[in-house]
């Protein structure tokens, strides 16, 4: 067993886990943060995407112990008490999620993208979502929402991209 202390959504958390425990399992089972999903457990589907030290990663392919001392952002940390994140808002408004299971991972990928590139092109968005499989949407309304969020976050007075 190893003791893992890390920062999750700005707060320090500790758990004692088996050496083989992935960051995803620790988040879900030990910290009750079930927003990150287990869809394949081998890094193909991206439903487990979280941001570690500013970079999106598959939390199913990272051992919890490897996240020791690092800064982890999960879907639960995006909204604050008085507002949802502009990406979450855009995803709601564009009906970008259908069954929703891939959503937390997709939104974390989108957040990492917009943190790095505030004004992405459609090919850049497609590339950023390349590791997030979705079976419901064809990705179309996700791309729309990311463009909308990008404009809103940059303060452009765009009401809708339609």
């Amino acid at each position: 067993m190893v003791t893992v202390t890390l920062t999750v959504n700005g707060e320090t958390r500790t758990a004692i886990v088996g050496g083989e425990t992935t960051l995803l399992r620790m988040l879900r089972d030990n910290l009750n943060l079930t927003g990150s999903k287990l869809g394949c457990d081998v890094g193909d589907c991206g439903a487990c995407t979280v941001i570690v030290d500013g970079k999106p990663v598959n939390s199913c392919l990272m051992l919890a112990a490897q996240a020791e001392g690092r800064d982890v952002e999960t879907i639960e940390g995006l909204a604050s008490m008085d507002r949802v994140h502009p990406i979450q808002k855009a995803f709601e408004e564009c009906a970008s999620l259908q069954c929703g299971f891939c959503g937390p991972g997709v939104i974390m990928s989108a957040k990492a993208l917009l943190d790095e590139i505030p004004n992405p092109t459609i090919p850049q968005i497609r590339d950023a979502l390349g590791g997030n499989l979705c079976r419901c949407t064809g990705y179309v309304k996700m791309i729309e929402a990311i463009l909308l969020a990008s404009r809103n976050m940059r303060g452009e007075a765009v009401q809708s991209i339609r």
Partner: protein
Amino acid sequence: MRAFELFSAKDSRDAVALLAKHSITSKVKVIAGGTDLLADLKFSAHSPNVVVDISRAQELKSILVTDDGLRIGSLVTHSQIMRSPVIQEMFPALVDAAHTIGAVQTRNLGTLGGNLVTAVPSMDSGPTLMALEAIVSIEGTEGRREVPLTDFFLGPRKTVLKADEILAEIIIPKQNLGKPTHFLKFGLRKGQALALVNSAASFWVDWDKHTFVAPRIGLGAVAPKVIRATQAEAFLEGRKITPEVMAEAGLIAATDAKPISDFRASAGYRKNLVAVLTKRALEGAYALAQAKR
């Protein structure tokens, strides 16, 4: 995933010490980025008892230009390769190769060293490094040793690494710095694809004679390990650069390739891909050479 005991190495010295200690009594695996190892272990009944985490070894994370050439630490991630201004400038092919690996999430985790050590024939880092005649620096309890990448791979998932050794650095020798190189991959889809075939071509141009100088071609997924297309290289050496010659070299490279048929593709189709990709990689490298002239 089966339970195992995890040891975190502080640095590379610590890593080889831990390996030396535990490999005597236990089945040991090394984890760096984890993208290959954990995916392999998840549904496997065979599991190591001990895993040594080397991901914190800072000294294996740098990209440096030295008197020996370009030294890339084994723990440099694929994303870091894509973002490195030095690599972008000298070897856009390495950037392209890194970009075709997995997806953003796996590129942020996966390391160059991990990609090589896994020794899967379809690896995307191998062909370009092979074409650039890379050398790997291996660290063991006795210290460092250097091995040409061509000799590093023994077969599918087999390398010359001993139980107490780790891959420390990948060195592109000085004489090849800035050598025009182009990498192409063909997968079954555009995102997150395994290579059916990948090919990298690299050569200097004698602009007076307009001929190929020191042409090197690396091929992936067409043999038990990443290989050089030596017959195609010999054919090109000193030859005039023309579209016909590049197409011919592609066809010769296809005879260098010894692919197998599996459920992803037939051997015959893979040979065709070798010819097409190699031709196009040569064209791409030539375009780069012209741009750099």
